[in-house]
């Protein structure tokens, strides 16, 4: 993890912000971003005292930090430790019973990978079913920097062609057709991609592949498969785009906001949609549940045509045991996740560039959390 620590030093040096985290999807939001504090869902009666250990996805690091802060405001004796080591590492530790729950960018896999089935292993480790609970969702922005263009509409097809190097200038007829009335310059398009393997890349390519299968023929992966110029982590691509006229990249909402990069609106077939947490939530709401019962693994419909839905989103899960071998641990996990999934905490995540869970999903998550024992 020394890399991310180094990233943190960079972030501090850059912005002077006190956010001491830097991960694949870190969000160097100023420390001032308000915590929802004592108003969170944890009432004093739910409090536990002692340690709770979790590990996993870097994408939800800032969200879970915020949730921990909120929880500890109410429950001063609770000590919750989340190590952002990556989804794979989190699941591995969860199966090895080293942590109480895991954070992951994707639900436990039910098909064999490298000779192992994650879902089965997790079930064996728990001695009960393991559940995927969607907890944090984050929209991915297509951020660009073109002189004189403040508003840009793209659809999956055109975006896929841009990121695959098929469309090379900003005044290409395909872009112009989506942006009537906008004067597009002849500037060459410079695509910036994440040079590290990242869940953001995976989700973005999932979107391109699902919504424009003929234009984006590569399999979605953590490693970039399109064209362009690679930069290190979210901060790297955002900085590079900001410094390059004609630049375009895909990056988490918070990075686009902090770098004041304009974000493309996405036309999913029912008109252009601007990136807002609500628009992203709409896509989550249309997702299909692939798990059964309280296992809330979701399959996002990236090709959704729902009006007003922003389709490029990423969902991260907390992976928990439905019934913990140690009842005390179960109580701790339940208490913390109850607070995390509460409306108050979910709303407070908006300021960090995440999107709150849409009501329908949040209700399901809350009832699943209640069923943990």
């Amino acid at each position: 993890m020394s890399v991310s620590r180094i990233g943190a030093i960079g972030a501090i040096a850059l912005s002077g912000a006190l956010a001491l985290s830097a991960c694949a999807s870190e969000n160097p939001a100023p420390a001032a971003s308000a915590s929802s504090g004592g108003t969170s869902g944890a009432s004093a009666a739910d409090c536990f005292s002692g340690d709770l250990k979790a590990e996993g996805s870097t994408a939800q690091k800032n969200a879970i930090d915020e949730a921990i802060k909120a929880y500890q405001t109410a429950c001063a004796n609770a000590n919750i430790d989340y190590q952002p080591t990556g989804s794979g590492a989190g699941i591995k530790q969860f199966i090895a019973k080293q942590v109480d729950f895991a954070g992951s960018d994707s639900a436990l896999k039910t098909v064999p990978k490298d000779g192992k089935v994650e879902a089965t292993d997790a079930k064996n480790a728990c001695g009960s079913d393991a559940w995927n609970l969607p907890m944090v969702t984050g929209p991915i922005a297509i951020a660009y920097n073109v002189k004189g263009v403040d508003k840009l509409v793209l659809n999956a097809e055109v975006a896929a062609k841009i990121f695959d190097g098929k469309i090379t200038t900003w005044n290409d007829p395909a872009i112009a057709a989506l942006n009537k009335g906008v004067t597009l310059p002849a500037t060459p398009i410079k695509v910036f991609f994440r040079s590290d393997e990242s869940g953001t890349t995976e989700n973005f390519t999932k979107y391109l592949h699902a919504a424009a299968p003929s234009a984006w023929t590569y399999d979605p992966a953590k490693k970039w498969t399109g064209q362009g110029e690679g930069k290190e982590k979210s901060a790297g691509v955002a900085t590079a785009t900001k410094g390059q006229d004609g630049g375009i990249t895909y990056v988490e909402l918070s990075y686009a906001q902090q770098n004041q990069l304009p974000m493309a609106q996405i036309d999913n077939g029912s008109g252009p949609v601007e990136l807002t947490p609500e628009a992203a939530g709409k896509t989550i709401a249309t997702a299909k549940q692939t798990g059964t019962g309280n296992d809330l693994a979701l399959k996002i419909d990236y090709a959704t045509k729902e009006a007003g839905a922003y389709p490029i989103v990423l969902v991260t899960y907390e992976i928990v045991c439905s019934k913990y071998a140690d009842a005390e641990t179960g109580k701790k996990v339940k208490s913390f996740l109850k607070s995390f999934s509460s409306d108050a905490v979910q709303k407070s995540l908006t300021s960090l560039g995440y999107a709150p869970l849409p009501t329908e999903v949040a209700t399901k998550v809350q009832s699943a959390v209640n069923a943990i024992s």
Partner: protein
Amino acid sequence: MSTVTGVSATDDPPGPDGRTPLRGVSASTGRLGDRLFGGAATVSGVIVIATVTLIAVFLIVQAVPALRDNQASFFTSREWAPGGDTPRFGIVEFLWTTVAASTMAMIIAVPFGVAVALFLTQYAPLWMRGPAAALVDLLAAVPSIVYGLWGLITFAPFFKPIQGWLENTLGWIPLFSPTGISGGTILFIGLVLSIMVLPIVTALSREVFAQTPLAHKEGALALGATRWEMIRTAVLPFGRPGVISAAMLALGRALGETIAVTFLVSSLPDGAAWTWSLFNGGETFASKIANNAAEFSNPNKTGAYIAAGLVLFVLTFIVNSIARIVIERRKAFTE
């Protein structure tokens, strides 16, 4: 008759000026000191050798299984897709970027560093030598992350137009042919690296130049040499082994530099056309490993990166060995 541990009383007889001689009792620390110091030195030496050996063994042990599964040629393939069922990875791209950027850094830093050292020891007025040397040494103390940030925020925008001009003017030379990469090119990385290693070259060269025997210098001047001729005939030959070892030390740092490079470098997408251009992007060994360390999800994948690390280890080792050989051979001529 002297001992290892102290100055014997017999080394320092009373001089003509009537000084009292060293007292034998306090001058020697005796056999115990001998044993302690000798033992400590031996242990330190053994630990260092053991550490280096163990690192090499670790790298090899971790790398071999991954290398065995590799479906592509490790030394000639440009693909990098470790892990999975059919891992395919090769290092040729990292090797080129690493070597090209480091060579660029050397081409710039060594002559410049030697010139600075000569100025500080031969030309600068006496009052200036100390403070100026301290300033140069201070450059060496700047953490590499700072160079990375400075390169990214300040130097890159400044260099971009220069690079554009070079591409337009000298683009017909394959080394300078234009590519689509906007910043973080091999040339740019080389420039930043050269600034990073400059103080190493300067500091070490300055030390050796300053030790040029006065007799050599005065002899040259007495024979009618100009100052430049004196430097060429007395200072430079005397300092050559020092300069070479300084350059190799600097090259070692340039090859392995991680943070600043990771910050600055522009990596290439899969299947990008091969070009010799210095204006192309690409990742070095160190930046590739650092950038992806968070996603070492299975031993096979980790092994691939460790194999790349092993190549860097061997590369650095070779560079240092060459430096040793050169210095040994040069010594014979200068002494």
